[in-house]
């Protein structure tokens, strides 16, 4: 099905099942430990050996020699695979660095070897016995030091410009010109990258933890130089990804090499927590400069956003200015994205790449501007709302209710109680402040396919290689199929995450929910057609409800229609150019109250509230979970998260969850989430948009703005740890 004209009335509008707060259909499996994750496939791959990866102890240089004699002789060790005996390997296009080092080392903790043994402890102890001699060469690990050497990336839109920014900024009555920094961040999902691999007759089976099944097959094919047809990937349950599992990583490659080395016997391998940080990808640190010029009435006349980040040679930039291109009006504008070469582990996508860090700067700068204008920050944003793409005014937004979010959010939060003068509100030792920020995240759509069948019992089965990374895909896909086929939820079976199923959008960039359900919609439409034709019904007036197919005064049960052989149909949704003719994005407004300890400078969030406009909300319960999880991640980004680079060794030094802080339960207060009533007919037949990342966008800036309001200290180097605050507090 091609989606190239706005959706009209369709069966999803019934909203009998869709739009309802159904519990997760996979919830029971997860809470009873019966959902099998990649490392737990004893059912499918019994008698697995264990793999353990030895990562490089240097960040850049060369492996001079590897002595594996002691490792091979260690108890239980079955095989040691290094570049010397792995056979020829390719580098997947999706990978910046190779998954196995040798002889060159590209980054710290790049896999140097996998040790395969009968037990996990034996494999890990064996890895410690490998003696690797390195020749270390100097590397570049410091973004600030490399900023001047940054260049314009070859792809994407590194430079944008409309009007005369420099002239307008020079003439602006009120100006903000500030520099911001955001640190490297690690995804730190609960389930580390994990794989069980097995070979049979030259074919590879991978049970792995992955967001994008079709990409995983491609990455493995390009790495192992194996036809795609010889690779079967399954990833039915994923314990979080946040972008780190968009591509297969060394766990999958090294488990496959390990299994091949022991004759195909299954090998299971999970990265150790420090390896999640240094062996895989991370969100790159940024340096950003924001300049905003406005008239005295608050109208923005000039806005510029520049960003610098670093990556390994061949890598890409963090596109921090993304949101600034679309969020506010202003006739004169420019953005610039620059990329330095750094020899740190690979930088790549983490939840809301671009916007998450870009809004930490933009929305803090807007707060500065509001103060200089002596204008309410909510009002400043309303004044500068735009219903068209400011770079291309002929291009309208498909839906844009930023103003509604701002007003509704402010009302729910009690924004009118805010004292605009910093440092005025106390609660015992606590200085109390309020802050807000807009939320913005692109709405991306991706081609997505599915197969839907009905059996003689009237049970509807959906199969698609879509993944559920904890987001609720199983549930919203089941709701979609139930709505489309007119059956209750308990008559729907959803099968996900298997490369033998039709290729889907996968999970990433908050495109998964909308795109994959639209693919299921397409397959259901095809199946409805098939059913109607078989019954000789006129497909224009056919109704699927209560487990029956009805047309005029005829009514046949689905089970009868399916017959003994059953019926099935496969289709995919392909998106046309509606994202080009319309700007498509999701919007919201965050409101936060913080306390700053007047003595110690400790910052604690006291309450959070947000209103969001993201098209049809397919399941308010799972959507809310996405948003509160993202808000929580935003608390981390604002107050505590940061991967610390030791520039002498070229690695992230705080590489475990004791030292790399993410919020604990005690850090998270009451979170209020409100969804605006909205349908976006230009986004998909589901009339939905992404919701998985929006909640993260802007929340950190709202916290920083609240900290300023509480204690009068602006911190522009994230995260806002107390050492950056106490020296400047009264």
């Amino acid at each position: 099905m091609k989606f190239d004209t706005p959706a009209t009335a369709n069966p999803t509008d019934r909203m009998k099942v869709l739009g309802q707060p159904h519990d997760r259909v996979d919830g029971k499996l997860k809470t009873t430990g019966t959902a099998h994750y990649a490392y737990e496939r004893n059912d499918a791959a019994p008698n697995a050996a264990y793999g353990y990866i030895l990562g490089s102890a240097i960040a850049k240089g060369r492996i001079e020699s590897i002595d594996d004699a002691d490792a091979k002789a260690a108890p239980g060790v079955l095989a040691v695979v290094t570049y010397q005996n792995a056979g020829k390997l390719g580098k997947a296009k999706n990978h910046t660095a190779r998954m196995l080092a040798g002889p060159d080392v590209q980054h710290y903790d790049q896999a140097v070897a996998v040790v395969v043994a009968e037990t996990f402890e034996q494999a890990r102890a064996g890895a410690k016995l490998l003696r690797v001699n390195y020749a270390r060469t100097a590397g570049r690990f410091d973004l600030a030091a490399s900023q001047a050497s940054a260049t314009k990336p070859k792809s994407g839109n590194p430079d944008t410009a409309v009007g005369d920014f420099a002239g307008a900024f020079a003439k602006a009555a009120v100006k903000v010109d500030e520099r911001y920094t955001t640190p490297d961040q690690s995804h730190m999902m609960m389930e580390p990258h994990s794989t069980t691999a097995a070979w049979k007759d030259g074919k590879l089976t991978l049970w792995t933890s992955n967001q994008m099944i079709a990409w995983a097959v491609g990455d493995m094919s390009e790495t192992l130089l194996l036809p795609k047809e010889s690779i079967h990937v399954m990833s039915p349950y994923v314990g979080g990804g946040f972008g780190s599992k968009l591509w297969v990583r060394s766990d999958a490659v090294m488990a496959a090499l390990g299994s091949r080395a022991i004759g195909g016997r299954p090998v299971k391998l999970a990265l150790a927590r420090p390896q999640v940080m240094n062996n895989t990808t991370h969100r790159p640190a940024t340096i950003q400069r924001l300049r905003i010029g406005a008239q005295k009435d608050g109208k923005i006349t000039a806005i510029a956003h520049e960003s610098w980040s670093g990556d390994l040679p061949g890598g890409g930039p963090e596109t921090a200015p993304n949101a600034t291109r679309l969020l506010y009006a202003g006739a004169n504008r420019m953005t610039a994205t620059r990329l330095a070469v750094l020899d740190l582990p690979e930088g790549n996508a983490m939840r809301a790449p671009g916007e998450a860090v870009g809004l930490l700067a933009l929305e803090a700068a807007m707060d500065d501007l509001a103060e200089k204008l002596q204008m309410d920050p909510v009002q400043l944003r309303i004044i500068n709302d735009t219903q068209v793409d400011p770079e291309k005014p002929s291009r309208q937004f498909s839906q844009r209710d930023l103003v509604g979010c701002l007003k509704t959010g402010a009302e729910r939060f009690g924004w009118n109680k805010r004292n605009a003068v910093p440092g005025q509100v106390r609660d015992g030792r606590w200085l109390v402040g309020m802050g807000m920020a807009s939320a913005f995240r692109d709405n991306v759509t991706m081609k997505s396919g599915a197969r839907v069948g009905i059996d003689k019992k009237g049970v509807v089965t959906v199969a698609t290689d879509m993944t559920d990374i904890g987001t609720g895909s199983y549930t919203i896909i089941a709701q979609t199929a139930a709505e489309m086929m007119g059956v209750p939820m308990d008559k729907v079976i959803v099968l996900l995450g298997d490369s033998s199923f039709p290729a889907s959008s996968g999970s990433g960039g908050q495109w998964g929910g909308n795109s994959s359900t639209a693919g299921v919609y397409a397959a259901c439409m095809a199946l409805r057609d098939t059913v109607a034709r078989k019954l000789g019904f006129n497909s224009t007036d056919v109704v699927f409800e209560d487990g029956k197919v009805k047309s005029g005064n005829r009514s046949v049960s689905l089970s009868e229609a399916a017959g003994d052989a059953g019926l099935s149909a496969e289709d995919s949704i392909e998106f046309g150019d509606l994202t080009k003719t319309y700007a498509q994005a999701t919007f919201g407004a965050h409101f936060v109250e913080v306390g700053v300890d007047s003595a110690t400078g400790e910052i604690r969030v006291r309450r959070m509230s947000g209103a969001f406009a993201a098209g049809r909300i397919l399941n308010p319960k799972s959507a809310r979970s996405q948003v509160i999880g993202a808000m929580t991640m935003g608390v981390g980004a604002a107050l505590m998260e940061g991967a610390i680079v030791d520039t002498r060794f070229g690695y992230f030094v705080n590489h475990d969850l004791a030292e790399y802080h993410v919020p604990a339960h005690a850090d998270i207060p009451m979170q209020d989430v409100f969804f605006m009533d909205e349908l976006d007919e230009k986004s998909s037949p589901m009339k939905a948009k992404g919701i998985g990342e929006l909640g993260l966008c802007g929340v950190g800036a709202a916290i920083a703005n609240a900290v300023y309001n509480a204690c009068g200290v602006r911190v522009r180097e994230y995260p806002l740890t107390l050492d950056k605050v106490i020296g400047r507090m009264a």
Partner: protein
Amino acid sequence: MKAFTYERATSAREAASAAIRTPGAKFIAGGTNLLDLMKLQIETPQHLIDVNGLGLDKITPTSEGGLRVGALVRNTDLAADVRVRKDYGVLSRALVSGASGQLRNKATTAGNLLQRTRCPYFYDTTKPCNKRQPGSGCAAIGGFNRNLAVMGTSEACIATHPSDMAVAMRVLDATVETVNAAGQTRAIPIADFHRLPGATPNIETSLAPGELITAVTLPKPIGGTHIYQKVRDRASYAFALISVAAVIQPGGRGRLAFGGLAHKPWRVEAAEAQMPNGAKATASAVLAGARTTSQNAFKLPLVERTIGAVFEEAKA
């Protein structure tokens, strides 16, 4: 984790003898720190002597009017003990500010005293660390040291001791009781129990090889207002940037001990005379001789500000 042998001791003296008998042996109780270190091969004991069965899990009154806390009393139980909460509130508060409920259920009194530093370089066997591998150097000096020591440091080591409990015990002038293989017992004042790093940061306590902690004794209650103020980067489950254990008497005199500043719980008795003169004077005396880095220099003003907050709280 390297393979190791294991035995269960049935008496304290026997445990101490076993430790002398077997080179490279370690005692294990809660294992909340040791097992982690063994998995990372930071600790590689050949032999573990399980002391959990020794019965040292009682809290009993002493003839001096204090409490004797068995070495195996779990942190949760010690924090919840009515006598501790009533007469040694600073200890109870310090305990519950540490780790998580699950860890406190396992962690023991003696084990808590013997926790090893959380310096990230100590935890990374590919990096130099004089504490882990004497003579290899200190990667923390000149590295990531935001949360490392500012007092009593040496050229060899700037690690901190991570315990909260030990800071409270230091302010209470607790005594560590031990037994050795010969059956001799010893009472070590807490002030002398932990060592400064000097040239041998690998030697962290005054325990002799094989010497086993049997109890920690708290002296007779001293009254006063008990406060434990822990300053940290998140609300729970984080090591102290700094912490202050305070017992403050009417009139403002009292005692102060600090966590997060040094290789041991930090207390400067002479500085306590400054307490009636306010936070600035007190902090200045506590922090005399501080050596900071650009990353951890914030601890000095933080100590002063936190002392001020503690004094205010005591008045309230």
